[in-house]
């Protein structure tokens, strides 16, 4: 006779899937702000701030 189980596998699978999607979106947003990845247009939006802080001159 089986004992009561803890977290069922489909819950783990769902949580992993949703966590993975969340992580991917956050990574895409972060790298987009830094001027990389698929959302590079975000970098243009924060251009005034990076310019004011002289961050755009790092590496020059």
């Amino acid at each position, binding site marked *: *006779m*089986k*004992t*009561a*189980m*803890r*977290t*069922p596998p*489909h*819950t783990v699978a*769902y*949580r992993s*899937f*949703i*966590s993975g*999607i*969340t992580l991917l*979106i*956050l990574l895409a*947003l972060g790298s987009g702000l830094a001027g990389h990845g698929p959302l590079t247009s975000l970098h243009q939006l924060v251009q005034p701030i990076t310019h*004011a*802080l*002289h*961050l755009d*001159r790092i590496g020059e």
Partner: protein
Amino acid sequence: MNYHVGYSIAAVIACALVLGVSLFAVAFVQALVRDPDLIEPATARDEQAKAKPAGPGEFPLDLAWPYYPFRQGWADLERTRLNVARRNAQVWRPGRALFDNAAGWWIVFPVPLALVIFLSVASVACAFCFLVYALVTVVGNGASLALLVPSAAIMRGWERMRRGRMRTQATCMTCFHVAQWPAYQCPGCPHTHRDVRPGRLGLLIRRCECGTHLPLMALRAAWRLTAVCQRCGAPLPPGAGAVRDIRIPVFGDISAGKTRFLFASLNSVMQTSRRARLAVGFPDTDSRKLAEFGLSIIRSGRETAKTSTNAQVGLTLRLGTGRRSELVHLFDAAGEHFRDARRPDALRFLDDSQGLVYVLDPFSIEDIRKRLGGTALRLAHAAAGDPELTYDEVASRLRDSGIPASNQRLAVVVSKADLLRSAGFDLPTDSEAIARWLSGIGVHNLVLAAGREFAEVRFFMVASQEVAPDGQDDPGAPLRWLLTAHGARLPVGQDSAATPGRHRSTPVASEVAEARS
């Protein structure tokens, strides 16, 4: 702005962003991995029962893990929100303790402001991460529900339609309860699953509280799980609730020949089925033993013993095999029960019958008794009571129970035809001729009432012995008629009543009136 200042500010903002993301990560891992709010089956059932209490005849939600988008997804979101709020409160608490009075604030003026900005950036970053997670959860759960709910509704509808078309039900031969579908025993634990339709516990499979996978829908569960009665928990035959289910009670007075008719008709149906290579089996041990005993008596030509008032009153046979088979339940009770048929328990099977067989002993009819001597009546073990009284008792019970007899078919079986013929009676074989003959010998009230109360009535002459090769007096004819009328795929065999037209109420009434005049 001096780039030295700019870099410092950028570094501080980066630290604040890292802190915010870290806060969210800690709260998230704690909510989903380390200390999740796990919605267990019992919790889900209690919540569901509170939100929508089970009505009469309904059962609370089964103990199985609810599908993630229905409940657990929202619980995870709520737990993450609480954790994020708690973590943010924790990082704000030291600063609040240091600068909670105005004096302290002004003495080190720029520091509190810088700290507030730093923590605000961290909190905004944390909140933003949470918002992304919440958005993903809402969209994911919503999309899953948009797929699951209509799919479950379609599958339920399809199963309901199939249930109506095939007349699949689950009959318990222990308590005579008839359910639309049976309950199923979990193979891994003692839990019983009462509703295996697709829904919030799963679409094709569900996971029992113990973790065992169970197939959903009666059509799939019927052959993989052990079916049990919804009311008493007695085991039901495999396929119950997924195959056609036909219930036929046999009733009549004491010594009318009910038990003998039941086994003789079973014997006849088995013979015609065997000729057509249609498998006939008994799905449970009790039915098999009872049938073997009864059939051995019929085949050996021995006398049938009087049915005990405590004897088993039903047997189940399976026509065909597997998913295309049909379960037939035959009920027989001692005639004493029918003397007071309105008693609720012993004749419970009458309430859910689909077709009835009334066995009428011709030797109990006054007109016949007058024509025959005492010796012939003793040899025929004639029933002593008035044949119309038993019929009236059963008809009253059906009426009082609210059972629409007008949806049912009735086979009126005149038993002991061989004895009557040997006593010199010239008996009709046609259903309508038998009705006229019965009316002519004083059973007109029964003929009239039966035609009026039931959807369709046919009359049969049967003999358990000495059945003619042409099928005259074949005891299987009434059973075959009722079974085929309810969709059983029986071969067309000997059928003495195959030729007559249907005996409906209106023509019968007029014919009987003519016969009486």
